[in-house]
């Protein structure tokens, strides 16, 4: 009967497009599925977070919108922030992790260079690994959908909701983007309100307008 275990694991790992056998709907099936879920959640908790001896590396980049701070773990970029002072940025990082928080231009050189190029108008897309382990599965889907909006284009919250298969979820999408831990690199500024209105931006609308102007898409926005 191991075929059922394989079915459950495949479902959880996303190996097969949903093929819920009737058994999965039975109490036994649901119990087993929950067991596997707990197992994988436990594994994630034990091995997915910051590993022993791991550190978070950060650095500041001068930019036309003021200083931009970046932070990365071994797994990838995990935070971009502006409107922060250095101490409060480092405090924020310390508040979220047991890892050491270390200033390191060397460990952040790649993203720093890409951001410089971006603000100089010489780069239209970023190529970095992202560490989204602290982000909920729903928010991750929203953020990854936002990364697929190219520079020079804007889409509506409703369109992102549709793309992730949650039509009617534009409010939740707005919320998820409002808490984007990696703005600019995950271009939530390219997501605007319906009817070509600019919508909101956690970093302030002035910055959203600046970023869109830099990308040449501000003209598409009504207000």
């Amino acid at each position, binding site marked *: *009967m*191991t075929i059922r*275990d*394989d079915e459950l*694991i495949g479902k959880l*790992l996303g*190996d097969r497009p949903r093929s819920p056998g009737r058994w999965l709907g039975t109490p036994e099936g649901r*119990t*087993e599925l929950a*067991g*596997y879920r*707990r*197992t*994988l959640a*436990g*594994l*994630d*908790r*034990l*091995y*997915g*977070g910051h*590993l*022993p*001896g*791991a550190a978070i590396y950060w650095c500041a980049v001068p930019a036309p919108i003021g200083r931009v701070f970046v932070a990365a773990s*071994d*797994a990838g970029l995990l935070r971009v922030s502006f409107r922060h002072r250095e101490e409060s940025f480092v405090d924020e990082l310390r508040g979220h992790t*047991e890892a050491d928080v270390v200033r390191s231009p060397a460990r952040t050189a790649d993203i720093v260079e890409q951001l410089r190029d971006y603000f100089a108008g010489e780069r239209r*897309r970023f*190529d970095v*690994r992202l560490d989204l382990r602290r982000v909920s599965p729903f928010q991750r889907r929203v953020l990854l959908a936002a990364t697929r909006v190219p520079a020079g284009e804007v889409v509506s919250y409703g369109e992102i909701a549709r793309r992730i298969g949650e039509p009617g979820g534009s409010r939740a999408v707005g919320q998820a983007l409002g808490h984007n831990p990696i703005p600019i690199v995950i271009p939530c500024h390219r997501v605007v309100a319906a009817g070509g209105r600019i919508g909101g931006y956690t970093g302030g609308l002035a910055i959203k307008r600046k970023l869109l102007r830099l990308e040449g898409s501000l003209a598409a926005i009504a207000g």
Partner: protein
Amino acid sequence: MRPVPVSLAELTARHRDGIVGYLVRLLGDRQEAEDACQDAFLRAHRAFARLAPEANSRAWLYRIATRSGLNAARRRARRTARAADVDLDSLPAAAGLSPERREELLAIRRAVDRLPPRQRAALMLRQFEGFGYAEIAVALGGSEQGARANVYQAIKKLRATLGGARRRDAKR
């Protein structure tokens, strides 16, 4: 887009952090992982000339790292008896959880330590490095089907430690 990495230096710089993280998960010890990574990059240096330009360079590098990691695991198995039991307090991931959930995490952790190294490697590649089965097969050597079987076996074993599992799990 950046161009495809052309030099070994660029390749290792790009993947170093990922590989150390993978080896920590595989070996459960940061120092051993750093050593294994060093060893892997030396091997990569020797083998780089034979890497076909169109090959999947990430899978190639992880294959070398996996070999170094498995060697380290084998050496350790010879050196020490079974690893000492895990201390609850050494599990930061368990902080703030109910005692029941802490016990569960501990059981999973012990089960991970007992996994055959190849299964552990396959599991970590699938779960934390985002590898597909074809890439895992390259990293471990062997077939795609074998890679998948390794991942599934590992997960079943971890699942069986949780209790509430059906009897046949306990027999396995």
